[in-house]
């Protein structure tokens, strides 16, 4: 202990570590009524870090060449020591990241934390949601299996519905008329070199905004309900008399992370194949179209929306309108009230929207 104290003193002398710890950890006060939902942001950062780590390890053996990609993934899964674990953590983690991100956004919606002056936090979070979907889509093609090949064919084909530029956009995405080796090359580059950097940068911006405005108070306490915090000029939301981030809320973060890992590892070890269809283990064949190729679960609602409208353009336009509405929600919903039960119109719309999304996803699966 004495040695540790000496090391800490040595560092403190040089960078003022004690001051940083006091400001950012023990002296960083959070609202007393903060709840478990706030820890999902930390869970997401851990997931992202694990995705980066497992992704780097996979890159050591993965070959982004249409002739060798499938074989290299098979090698990782079957012959490389613990390769199966690394690959499954990466594949399951990508699905989990989308699921946790949806929960994080839902909690923000329900607690009204997107409202002024936190519009930019919401917009940056929404951007992250789109980017995570993008990185999942580009990663889906990389194993070069029948499933990934044809799912990418269907996904990229959707862009055809956009008037005038649609066909050019499809060709740009694929690097040719059809999904082929150039598609694999560009998807790989975007997946490993572009999107992770962009996501890390937007996470940085999201955290910067969080630090500048401070943590929002859950709308369930009496103080917040009576007097919502709504500054006229720039102001940091302090929480005098609140609980310190360290150790109090850091332990909540750690609890949530452990619970997440328990669920995540249960899927990795006991139900890994629920994320893979048998087509995921057959090499891509451009001349053999499997029936019933469906996108990942989080794209099923989009997929079904495109199917139920008579024209794909109409389906795409409705989706674009819904996404734009959601992205700009803080600028549309200007009421200061944040308690979900005191916003009946919002609550009805939110629950209706969630049920519609689930309904379309189930329909998309069975259609």
């Amino acid at each position, binding site marked *: 202990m004495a040695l540790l104290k000496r090391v800490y003193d040595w560092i403190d002398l040089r960078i003022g570590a004690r001051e940083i710890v006091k400001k950012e950890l023990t002296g960083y006060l959070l609202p007393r009524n903060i709840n478990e939902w706030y820890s999902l942001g930390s869970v997401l950062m851990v997931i992202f870090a694990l995705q980066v780590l497992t992704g780097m390890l996979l890159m050591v053996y993965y070959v982004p060449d249409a002739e060798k990609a499938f074989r290299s993934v098979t090698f990782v899964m079957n012959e490389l020591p613990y390769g199966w674990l690394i690959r499954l953590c990466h594949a399951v983690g990508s699905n989990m990241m989308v*699921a946790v991100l949806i929960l994080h956004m839902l909690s923000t919606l329900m607690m009204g934390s997107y409202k002024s002056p936190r519009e930019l936090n919401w917009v940056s979070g929404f951007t992250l949601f789109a980017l995570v979907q993008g990185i999942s889509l580009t990663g889906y093609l990389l194993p070069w299996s029948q499933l990934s090949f044809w799912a990418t064919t269907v996904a990229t084909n959707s862009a055809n519905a956009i008037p005038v530029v649609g066909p050019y956009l499809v060709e740009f995405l694929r690097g040719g008329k059809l999904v082929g080796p150039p598609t694999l090359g560009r998807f790989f580059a975007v997946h490993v070199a572009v999107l992770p950097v962009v996501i890390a940068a937007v996470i940085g911006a999201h955290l910067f905004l969080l630090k500048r405005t401070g943590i929002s108070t859950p709308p369930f306490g009496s103080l917040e309900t009576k007097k919502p915090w709504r500054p006229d000029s720039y102001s940091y939301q302090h929480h005098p008399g609140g609980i310190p981030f360290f150790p109090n809320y850091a332990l909540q973060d750690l609890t949530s992370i452990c619970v997440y890992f328990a669920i995540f590892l249960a899927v990795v070890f006991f139900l890994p194949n629920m994320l*893979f269809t048998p087509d995921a283990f057959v090499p891509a064949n451009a001349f053999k179209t499997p029936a019933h190729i469906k996108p990942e679960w989080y794209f099923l609602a989009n997929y079904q929306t495109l199917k139920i409208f008579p024209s794909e353009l109409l389906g795409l336009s409705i989706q674009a309108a819904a996404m734009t509405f959601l992205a700009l929600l803080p600028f549309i919903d200007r009421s200061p009230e944040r308690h979900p039960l005191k916003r009946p119109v919002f609550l009805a719309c939110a629950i209706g929207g969630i049920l519609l999304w689930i309904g379309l996803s189930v329909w998309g699966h069975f259609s």
Partner: protein
Amino acid sequence: MIRISAKLRASLFLASLGALLLAALAGPLTAGAAAPASAAATEQPETVCIQCHSALPDKLGAPVNLWRQSIHAENGISCNGCHGGDPKNADDAMNRSRGFLGAPKEADIPAFCGRCHPGVLKDYLASAHGRALGKGGPTCFTCHGNHQVLKASLDLINEKSCTRCHSFERAKTIRAAMQQTEGYIVGIDRRITGFQAIGVDTDRLGKGLFAVRNRFHTLFHDVDVARVRAESAQINTELAKLDRDLKVIEEARAKRKIAGGIAVAFMLLMAALVLLLKKTYD
């Protein structure tokens, strides 16, 4: 004032983490949807032969329904695969210059089928059945059917079928000698297919089974009881090797599950401990 209790929020939070699992469960829904892909991949567009003969009565229309239940239909082998002709053009569908062969005469049946099954043709011709061709002996159609061609299996050796020409005694002995091997092959095939569907590299095992199965199938047309017994015993030895390799994979996967159980339990224990520690600060 409307309040949401801390307990309710905590329950909702835990429920949502559980929902993560459900969300991940949506994956297999997709998996289930894509499962029939391989069967559909072999589907062929309807040929003009089928279109025309489906509408014809009796003898001319019956083959279509029989064919639909055959192993040929299952594997995408349509009328033109055996009878020739142009399956896309009604005018040339029965044009001899486009390879149309029509129905073979009885003595030509083995050669007719042997164009695609040369190994089986050789085995058949060498057998007592083949040697009796043209002298009242059976052809391929006798046991396998013509349009409703059945998958080669030991079920084809049965009393009803064999006693049409001779007693069942010797056939019964041969069938009994091959029965165990057949069951062994089917079981190993099922395990390999199961592993393949979950990403295990079964390439080597699949090729090994393919070779053994082919060797086994050469016995199907053999009526020499002693040779069938000896060959079956050797084939069983080969199958035992494949069985051992599969058991190694099964054991490795069982060990993974034990490790996974420990990891999940550890994480839950950690969550409980950290939560208790947090409570001490509340």
